[in-house]
């Protein structure tokens, strides 16, 4: 009984950590530009696919993983430069369509380059499971949760204790005022896209040894990350992390106790109680309207 519960909890936390990273990515870009980046899922896919590609080329694991994080970050920056910056201030729908177009381009190119197959990546440190009161925990799950924890800590430090981080926060609160005090707001958008793509890619790399990857995994992972961001409160960093873990745990518990066929539906069901009862999410602030 307890063993089963723990088992579901572990798998929920593991996949939830990936959603948390994706949700953080949504949050960063949303704060910098109020754009909901529907290409976020493709960065997760890119991370996974590139790490598989570089390790099969024979590169040592750390190098392969670094490349699989940096290249998606570059893709994110390019996207921002050629497609988001030129249309700043356009309607939200327009920006959403641009990011959807970008996601199609990325997915299509990967499909042409690496094919439609499903790929796996060896776990970082073997696959001898650890037993905890009857439940098994794979070493890869510890990697996923550990690295996510480190990233969250780093981000917290970045936003609270460094000038760049504070500048980014200031821009998200009030871009005009931020500009007036000398913050380069367009570089903020640039950095946000790089960080957000990099975060997504890391999530994608970490989860690949557990769930496998292919050119089309990005859609579902990205959308679930988006749900996590909404549940936590769109625009709130802590909310993104908590929302991600919650979505992961609900999904795993629902799949275990209710129906595994409806596993993918569970995160989307969570949207409704969130919107009906606490539309700003768990950690979202109150906002007021001005005429």
């Amino acid at each position, binding site marked *: 009984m307890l063993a089963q519960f723990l088992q579901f909890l572990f798998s929920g936390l593991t996949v939830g950590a990936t959603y948390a990273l994706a949700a953080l990515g949504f949050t960063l870009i949303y704060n910098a530009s109020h754009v909901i980046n529907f290409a976020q899922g493709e960065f997760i896919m890119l991370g996974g696919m590139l790490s598989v590609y570089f390790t099969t080329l024979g590169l040592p694991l750390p190098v392969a993983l670094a490349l699989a994080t940096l290249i998606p970050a570059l893709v994110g920056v390019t996207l921002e430069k050629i497609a988001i910056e030129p249309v700043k201030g356009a309607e939200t729908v327009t920006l959403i369509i641009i990011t959807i177009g970008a996601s199609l381009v990325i997915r299509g190119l990967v499909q042409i380059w690496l094919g439609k197959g499903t790929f796996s990546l060896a776990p970082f440190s073997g696959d001898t499971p650890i037993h905890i009161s009857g439940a098994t925990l794979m070493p890869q799950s510890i990697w996923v949760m550990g690295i996510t924890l480190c990233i969250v800590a780093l981000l917290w430090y970045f936003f609270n204790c460094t000038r760049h981080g504070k500048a980014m926060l200031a821009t998200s609160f009030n871009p005009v005022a931020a500009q007036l005090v000398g913050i380069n707001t367009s570089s903020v958008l640039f950095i946000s896209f790089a960080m957000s793509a990099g975060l997504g890619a890391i999530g994608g790399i970490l989860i690949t040894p557990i769930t496998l990857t292919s050119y089309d995994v990005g859609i579902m992972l990205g959308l679930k990350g988006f749900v996590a961001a909404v549940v936590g409160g769109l625009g709130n960093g802590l909310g993104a992390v908590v929302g991600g873990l919650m979505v992961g745990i609900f999904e795993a518990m629902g799949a275990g106790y209710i129906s595994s066929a409806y596993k993918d539906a569970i995160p989307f069901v969570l949207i409704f109680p969130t919107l009906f009862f606490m539309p700003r999410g768990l950690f979202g602030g109150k906002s007021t*309207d001005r005429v």
Partner: protein
Amino acid sequence: MKKNAYLGLFVVILILAVLPKFLPNNFYLDLAIRMCINAVIVLGLNLLIGFAGQISLGHAGFIGIGAYASAILPTHFGWHPVLAMAAAALLTAFIAAIVAKPIFKLKGHYLAMATLGLGIIINIIVRNEASLTGGPDGMPVPALSIGQFEFDSEKQWYWLFAVLLVFSTWASLNLIDSPFGRALRALHGSEIAAQVAGVNIIRYKVSIFVISAVFASIMGSLTAHYVGFVTPNIADFFHSIELVTMVVIGGMASIYGSLLGAVLLTALPQALSSFEGWETVIFGCVLMGCMIFMPRGLVPTLANRFNKGA
């Protein structure tokens, strides 16, 4: 302005009337039919996006409700197809109203999130309930017959959808010029100003969302009867995105933009099918290019240029 609008309607009727004469075979007739189907759905969706300023990322879910009701109710329960279609429209209206009511009390793009969730949930249900829906493989749909008359040739279907398209274009033109439409446009301008002027904004937004969802459901039913087969792809997230894209590429709040967007984006995948493997990439590039260079959409941008030049 008003004269121009009805001139446009006349042109649409003319094109639809002579089009079958110029189509060499049933392949093109089928393409024209699918353009009409999409155009009707996009007209409804554009009322929501263009005039109420809200996005639906789950319209394919409503199409799916219509399509599957028309497949399941007559096949498994012996309902008359017309009754099944009406039941689906009612169910869709009910779901849309229940979801929209609490959401429209909030400001922001919450409808996008809710409809995104709704669409994906409907799609997953359809894929999983194989005993009713045939699962991922889909299921056949019985023919549509009204009394003695049965729709069985492509030509008949073409005329049905052409008439529906003319009717919905005319209805949309009238709607935006009616007090209801003026209220909607006021909403898009400034909600608070509209409220001060006595517009019950929540009621208007809910109504327009329900209307557009019912448009989608009925067209879903008819599509299912026309194709004779339905698969979960009809309720796919990507299909929802395609519809929103048609609205935005054609031009938000532009009725003729909806028609143009539907025609172009229905034809585009066909035109791209010769670029084996590259369709997705090119489709994505076209979307991005259109939005970067014409963020307001084709018809408004071109109309603007034309007026400036004149």
